């Protein structure tokens, strides 16, 4: 298989109530990515799009086709990926395989979502569609409940007093808000304190509002190309060193492993193995912190900390720039925002820009970073992992 590189990136500001349509949001960032790659839409051979709930948000299905046409990629193969919040990452991983195989040389991958158009009650209902509709939704199973159940299980299994765990969870949100202040594309740009978190609305015990990411609108796009093409078009290609993806059954069926997510461990092992790397080789990480507890579970599943120990790592600053493994220097889903179909693509862009050294200006560059990993979770169990490198 050929090496594949990111050669262009485009990222919108994530926000509430975007005045633009999903096609408009995605077209803007796609043109940015194509221009950054020194290409025109005519050079794009195929398009992949992560979009989850367009049908409910705008009454728009099959957005990938209208989007491709909208930017002048007339009549190309255009595919939509749906794996809840991992959709964007699935779209990227699939495109990497098409280019690696030699079938295409240049592809465009976008992700877009307009979650806030649904309003909170419908958004809550549609997000719950990513749990089991017959055996788990009838009990009132919602997305915050997944991680609320896992938080209590985590406290019980690792024998951490709930109060201590709550402080560790708050540390995740506090750090993310701090870095989001330096990210001009972030949805939420204000600092929060431990008191802010612990006094916020109790959504689903023990998850409070400030443990949770917001509903978001936004888009992100990348152009990827074979190594040969990349070297002609850019002086700073960032390569996919490893990719992985795995799936799971309904939450209760994962009983043997919980609160660990087995599919995450499989997906990341696939990435590490393909890259010939270990967690120690990673210089930064963007992981799926839809809820603060999700970040703790993810950091352990990716191999950065012992099980039950990542909360201490956040409290001790090991996840900050200069720490053992800088995590979510973008502000994460919590503060950067989480337009679900775009999130995976956004994570790829964040790591790409760090590996190109583009973050100096924003004051959040991880100095000398060579390798970074992204981790995306869809529903209660589609996991995608990708390792990027500038080497």
């Amino acid at each position, binding site marked *: 298989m050929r090496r594949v590189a990111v050669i262009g990136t485009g990222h919108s500001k994530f926000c509430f109530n975007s005045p633009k349509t999903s096609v408009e949001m995605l077209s803007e960032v796609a043109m940015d990515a194509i221009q950054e790659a020194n290409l025109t839409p005519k050079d794009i051979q195929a398009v992949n799009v992560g979009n989850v709930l367009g049908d409910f948000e705008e009454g728009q299905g099959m957005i990938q086709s209208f989007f491709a046409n909208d930017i002048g990629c007339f009549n190309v193969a255009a595919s939509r990926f749906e794996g809840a919040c991992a959709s964007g990452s699935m779209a990227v991983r699939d495109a990497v395989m098409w280019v690696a195989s030699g079938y295409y040389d240049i592809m465009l991958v976008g992700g877009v979502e307009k979650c806030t158009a649904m309003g909170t009650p419908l958004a809550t*209902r549609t997000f719950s569609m990513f749990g089991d509709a017959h*055996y788990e939704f009838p009990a009132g199973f*919602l997305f915050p409940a997944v991680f609320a159940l896992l938080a*209590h299980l985590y406290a019980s299994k690792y024998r951490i007093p709930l109060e201590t765990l709550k402080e560790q969870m708050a540390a995740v949100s506090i750090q993310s808000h701090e870095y989001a202040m330096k990210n001009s594309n972030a949805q939420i740009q204000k600092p929060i304190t431990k008191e802010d978190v612990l006094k916020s609305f109790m959504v689903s015990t023990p998850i409070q509002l400030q443990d949770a990411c917001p509903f978001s609108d936004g888009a992100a796009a990348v152009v990827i190309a074979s190594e040969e093409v990349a070297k002609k078009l850019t002086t700073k290609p960032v390569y996919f060193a490893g990719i992985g993806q795995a799936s799971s059954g309904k939450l209760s069926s994962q009983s043997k492993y919980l609160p660990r997510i087995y599919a995450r461990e499989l997906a990341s092992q696939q990435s590490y193995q393909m890259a010939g790397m270990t967690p120690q080789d990673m210089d930064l990480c963007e992981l799926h912190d839809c809820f603060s507890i999700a970040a703790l579970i993810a950091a352990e599943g990716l191999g950065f900390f012992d099980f039950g120990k990542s909360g201490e790592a956040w409290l001790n600053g090991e996840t900050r720039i200069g720490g053992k493994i800088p995590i979510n220097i973008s502000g994460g889903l919590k503060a950067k925002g989480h337009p679900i179909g775009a999130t995976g693509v956004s994570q790829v862009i964040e790591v790409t820009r760090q590996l190109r050294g583009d973050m100096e200006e924003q004051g959040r560059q991880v100095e000398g970073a060579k390798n970074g990993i992204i981790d995306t979770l869809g529903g209660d169990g589609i996991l995608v992992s990708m390792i990027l490198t500038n080497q």
Partner: protein
Amino acid sequence: MDYKLTFKDYDKALKKDVLLGLRCNDCGAYTCPPMMVCGDCASTNLEIVEMSGKGRIVTFTTCNIAAEGRENENPYTIVMVELEEGPWIMGNLVSMDPKKVTMEVIGKAVQVGHRVYPGDKYSPQPMARPAFCITG
């Protein structure tokens, strides 16, 4: 290949407080809620069995938000229960005031019963949901 224990049959039994599952004739493991294959070894050599409906709470959450159309259920407690036969299932804890449910409930013995979720435009049929009472 026919589906051995469909949702329709599982649901019909649960509406009479009978929890059905599958026992694997190859590895002996139980699968509940049902699947096409054994959740442990993927065998299709399965038989339908009546589960004891007894188990222990392994985790819980009390929700103060609900999906569109279910706001009248707030607050409510979701539990995951490890059944005597091994599998975990999700349901509600109905024998306690949701506001008073704490970490103390983890490990408590429960017995299954049922409540009915009337369904909405995305899930038209009324569906049974396991409703657990603490027994000790």
